[in-house]
């Protein structure tokens, strides 16, 4: 298979891909931090008794969920001042996009806390803020850990969209290599394998977490 696959080319592209992998992981980690924090605030705000908070927020959340991530990335990139680095825009857009999904995970996690926990907090005359911080959220967040892990994997796999806003992550690095050498096979194969090498162990970890927390 000498013409199709060259071990030499594969070896040449590897350092570039690993640099790209670092960017990919950076985007995923920063994106997930934003998604986890913002998602929690969305979930809490959706419990607001005021319709003036809930209805507009629901509209924004649905809008973000119902439109493609790729379109959002390009849209925000084009509207942003040119001095903001593409990677920063990418992290924020990924973070906000996934925050709308994470908020559902938090909602389910909060609702899974038994009613008796709220009642015990009332019986102990705990203040509402303290009830949330000391009783409800610690239990709810424990319920959300597997969901958080699954969305982290899913976000990780969607980082190639950052190609569209010229962030040199793993896939873009492979494209650039291919454009220079006219051979894409090695680079893209290795991109796939590298994604798998990170995703698969992570997914096993998440599955273990699921069974341990269940």
């Amino acid at each position, binding site marked *: 298979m000498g013409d199709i696959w060259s071990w030499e080319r594969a070896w040449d592209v590897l350092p570039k891909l690993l640099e790209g992998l670092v960017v990919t992981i950076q985007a995923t980690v920063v994106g997930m931090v934003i998604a986890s924090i913002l998602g929690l605030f969305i979930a809490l705000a959706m419990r607001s008794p005021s319709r003036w908070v809930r209805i507009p927020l629901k509209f924004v959340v649905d809008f973000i969920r119902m439109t493609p991530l790729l379109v959002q990335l390009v849209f925000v990139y084009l509207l942003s001042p040119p001095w903001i680095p593409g990677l920063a825009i990418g992290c924020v857009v990924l973070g906000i996009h996934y925050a709308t999904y994470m908020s559902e995970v938090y909602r389910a996690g909060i609702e899974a806390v*038994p009613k*008796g926990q709220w*009642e*015990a907090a*009332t*019986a*102990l*005359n705990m203040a509402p803020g303290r009830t949330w911080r000391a*009783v409800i959220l610690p*239990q709810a967040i424990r319920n959300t850990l597997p969901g958080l892990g699954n969305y982290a994997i899913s976000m990780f796999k969607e980082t190639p969209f950052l190609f569209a806003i010229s962030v040199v992550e793993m896939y873009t690095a492979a494209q650039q290599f291919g454009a220079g050498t006219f051979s894409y096979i090695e680079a893209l194969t290795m991109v796939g394998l590298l994604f798998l090498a990170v995703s698969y162990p992570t997914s096993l970890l998440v599955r273990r977490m699921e069974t341990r927390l269940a």
Partner: protein
Amino acid sequence: MTTTPGDVPAIEFQDVVKRFGDNTVLDRLNFSVPQGQRITLIGPSGSGKTTILRLLMTLEELSGGLILIDGDPYTHEYKGEKWVAVPERRRRVVRNRVGMVFQQFNLFPNMSVLENIIESPVHVLKKSKDEAVADAERLLDKVGMSEKRDFKTNELSGGQQQRVAIARALAMDPEILLLDEVTSALDPEIVADVLDVLREIADTTDITMLLVTHEMQFAREVSDRVLMFDKGQIVEEADPETMFTNPSHERTQAFLKAVLGG
């Protein structure tokens, strides 16, 4: 223990109405509990006993009438002719005097036994941590759970969890303690341990207690008065001796015959 004169009832229900949708559970209920009295509520399920405890803990909202604690309006009050909810800030002041132990224990699983007990003394009563821990250790000793101080709550049996829950409620130094079927979720062989703890509390404190229980022998030993409920009304009210040996109302007779099995 209480700052109000002894002749003001600890608890007073005035024309209390509670509806769930179209279902009226309590219909203009009136009764009062003198300071320090132990009252057992008995009656068939759905008769409104548990609802009374839940109203007293503000776990349910009143549909009408008033509940007074030491003569103070608790959840609702009349402003002139208007019946209005008391703001949460003021409810919290009165709620400090009321504690509750639940059928399902409801310990916080994310905290240790000790943390469960000191949580509210520290954050609500603003005790120092050292003082709260010392009090908690004394209470754990009282309920026979001293060795489990640093255990996670899910490492305890049901009976042990309930004893911790009792210590947790007592740590708030309540004037009124509500006990909602506290032995119903326990295996028969450990019910006695929990009842022993409650008996000791009844003997050594002057806490006003309201019990909903199916443990008739226990009710007979610790209560000063027994109220028989049916369809949200008190159908009979008597001292435990009379109620359990010579009830006058036929509903009570039928109910006791059913639960005592003869």
